[in-house]
């Protein structure tokens, strides 16, 4: 039985335990129908031209974990940014772990989507925001159909969240192969500030397949700073779709660090619906072996006087494949836009491949849009300079890699996270260079 058939039949069982005949249920049915029609995307689709899911969907995943699993804090502590200095929403095999989490309802809601979907006091927010900007493509629809658990974050107006929020999904691997479909809804009110770190972490060598969808709404002058840390085990695959709706004068930034995992696909969509918005999309990919990362970004400028800034860096070793597909779309009424897109790549090994497709679609004339894309190697002169000063070849290369990735790192606003990422980069590159960059 193919994974698609399995999902379709699993849906009928799943449906019976649901909220009855609510609008959400109708939404699920519709979404399931769309998935049934389209199935998993194939390479024939333009958007999936360079990414094949065949190697991922061939496994026999269990769609619902059979029982609850516990993990010890000591085993997973290293994946947390802080013990106490962050809010945490932690899921183990897709099930909320209250033991590991630190949530709050104090003046804001940092809690669970399952609660938000079922309790009437949240119904107004759910009705206004849930599944409103998520695309209607097949994998997002699949997530919508099964969306049950995930983070629910609601920050009311003028609230500045004092510490970062971590959303962490663990997979214990007690099942032989597990598929998870977390769904996050984040609403940031007027003038509110929030910093969020999202992480998917497998604790096993068994195959894990995550199909995650996140919807973020930034109201007027809201400030959202979002980090995705993707440093998973070699048998874990992730499809991540994030949709961000920005109102007037809001500022949203998403940093994606793709350092591990078997196959990672990031669909990152920004919709600027108000004037004077600012969007930042940055990413670093460092891959090895047979890893595959596909960054698929879209910035849709629908209102005038907005700015968007994209900067993606890739270092590809082994037989890894990197894909960058960035699209800037400027609608007719969106005058005075300043859109910038940069994608730089270095191929380290002979078998590595990079496919880039930076696109511009522009319908307004008074705009400044540019994109640049480069593929190259280390600067021989720079390497020589460093080596002539007694720095070993590997170290010199590592230094240059740091320099290369630094434009993305420097805008990370959480110092502890920056330190961690730096360390991760160093281990990834395989050297310790004896000083902090």
């Amino acid at each position, binding site marked *: 039985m193919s994974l698609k058939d399995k999902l379709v039949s699993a849906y009928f069982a799943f449906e019976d335990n649901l909220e009855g005949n609510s609008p959400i249920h109708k939404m699920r049915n519709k979404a399931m129908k769309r998935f049934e029609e389209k199935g998993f995307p194939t390479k024939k689709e333009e958007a999936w031209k360079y990414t094949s899911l065949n190697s991922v969907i061939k496994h026999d995943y269990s769609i619902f974990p059979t029982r609850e699993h516990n993990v010890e804090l000591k085993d997973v502590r290293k994946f947390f940014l802080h013990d106490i200095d962050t809010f945490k929403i932690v899921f183990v095999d897709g099930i909320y772990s209250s033991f590991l989490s630190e949530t709050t309802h104090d003046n804001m809601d940092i809690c669970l989507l399952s609660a938000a979907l079922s309790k009437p006091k949240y119904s107004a927010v759910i009705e206004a925001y849930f599944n409103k900007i998520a695309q209607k493509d097949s994998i997002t629809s699949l997530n919508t159909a099964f969306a049950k658990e995930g983070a629910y974050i609601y920050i009311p107006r003028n609230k500045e969240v004092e510490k970062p929020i971590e959303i962490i999904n663990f997979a214990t691997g007690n099942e032989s192969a597990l598929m998870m479909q977390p769904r996050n809804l984040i609403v940031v009110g007027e003038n509110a500030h929030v910093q969020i770190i999202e992480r998917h972490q497998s604790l096993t060598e068994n195959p894990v397949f995550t199909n995650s969808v996140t919807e973020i709404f930034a109201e007027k002058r809201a400030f959202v700073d979002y980090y995705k840390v993707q440093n998973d085990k070699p048998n874990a695959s992730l499809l991540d779709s994030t949709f961000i709706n920005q109102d007037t004068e809001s500022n949203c930034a998403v940093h994606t660090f793709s350092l591990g995992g078997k196959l990672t696909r990031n669909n990152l969509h920004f919709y600027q619906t108000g004037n004077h918005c600012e969007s930042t999309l940055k990413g670093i990919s460092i891959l090895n072996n047979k890893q595959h990362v596909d960054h698929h970004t879209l910035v849709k400028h629908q209102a005038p006087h907005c700015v968007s800034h994209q900067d993606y860096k890739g270092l590809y070793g082994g037989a890894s494949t990197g894909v960058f597909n960035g699209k800037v779309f400027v609608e007719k009424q969106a005058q005075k836009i300043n859109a910038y897109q940069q994608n730089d790549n270095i191929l380290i090994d002979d078998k590595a491949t*990079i496919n880039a*497709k930076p696109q511009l679609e522009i319908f307004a004339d008074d705009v400044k849009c*540019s994109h640049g894309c480069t*593929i190259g190697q280390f600067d021989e002169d720079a390497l020589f300079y460093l080596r002539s000063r007694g720095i070993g070849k590997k170290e010199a290369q590592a230094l240059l890699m740091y320099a290369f990735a630094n434009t993305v790192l420097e805008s990370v606003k959480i110092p502890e996270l920056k330190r961690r990422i730096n360390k991760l980069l160093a281990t990834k590159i395989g050297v310790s260079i004896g000083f902090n960059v």
Partner: protein
Amino acid sequence: MSKFTEDDLKKDLENKEYEYGFYTNIESDTFPIGLNEDIVRAISKKKEEPEWMTQWRLEAFKYWKQMQEPDWANVNYEKPDFQKISYYSAPSKKPKYDSLDEVDPELLDTFKRLGISIDEQKKLAGVAVDIVMDSVSVATTFKKTLAEKGIIFCSISEAIREYPELVKKYLGTVVPQQDNFYAALNSAVFSDGSFCYIPKGVRCPMELSTYFRINQAGTGQFERTLVIADEDSYVSYLEGCTAPSRDENQLHAAVVELIALDGAEIKYSTVQNWYPGNKEGKGGVYNFVTKRGICHKNSKISWTQVETGSAVTWKYPSCILKGDNSVGEFYSIAVTNNYQQADTGTKMIHLGKNTKSTIISKGISAGKSQNSYRGLVQIHSRAHNARNFSQCDSLLMGNKCGAHTFPYIEAKNKSAHIEHEATTSKIGEDQIFYCNQRGIDTEKAIALIVNGFSKEVLNKLPMEFAVEAQKLLEISLEGSVG
């Protein structure tokens, strides 16, 4: 005579098509509409082609029947009905007009501004010309010089008859019959085209151009061009002309194949200014062209194109850089105005070591037009030290038009160096102000700025062409600023 306006011309053209549809046998040279195996055979017979050629065409037709018309391009148009086209009509011997006075004065005005000589004007407008015309004798002299050098330059039907080994060896090697929908169609039904062979070590002393070929049999809508540059030879080939061509064919599906053997260099320049349709976007030519060249060792192919006409353009002149140290270049200006749509760009396929490619594409969109650049740069795993530089700039005039960039970059070799940059902008108000201040009116100022914008490409055109192309840009964009 009352003024012959664009609409009259359109009506004229419409009526003509109508005529076409129901007329079959007034001149025995026009075939009935529709396409089937018999028509393909008949075309081949008409051309007195040998059996292998007929088979080749039939094979192409077989592929074509199984193919779908592509719809991935960023253009919208009503798909032509391929069974409503007459696939062969020899050029009418009867001139359209008896003297220049009958020709659309607007057209003549354009000729004048482009600086085209009276004789040429007559030819281009389809006026009956005197038999002792300058260019006829020029053509003969040309032919003599070429023959001395051993250069073969003739129509492709002639080449099929006279030089079958050459044609057999190279035809369809770069653009195979099954390459794409339009290439297959062209392979099955091509009416004529040109053939050019430059022998080893010969530098072609003049620009080979379609200018003087116009005297010979017209090429019709399914043109096939094959240019072969043997080892260490050089040729510069010009196609099309700057003069507005009022062709009544709706669909043009041409195929151009270039073969640059070791050390050879081919420079292929195109200026296309077909009927773009009227201001409301009615009518106009669909231009679906497949152009591709293959570079062997140390060779070079350079495409230069200025696209200002046609309602829909679908064209990607490409280079396959097969040999080591080969070089591919692509310089393009695409101007769209009113309701024109252009989806154009290039493919650079790097297979050999130390191959280099350069892409400079300038898109200018005005009115309600859509202008897309679509390009592919592919570095294969064995193409060590491949180098590519691409630059795509778009200029937008008004907020009703669109400019799009779809570059595909695929690198499979770690020693590849690829740079791609694209910008979109409009003409700066300060630039126009600067010109105005110095007594240059806005229209002229825009022409000046657009020329500056496209200079990198214009510079690559052969000299006499460049001058005309520059004026052509000016004319194409006339009235687009308001």
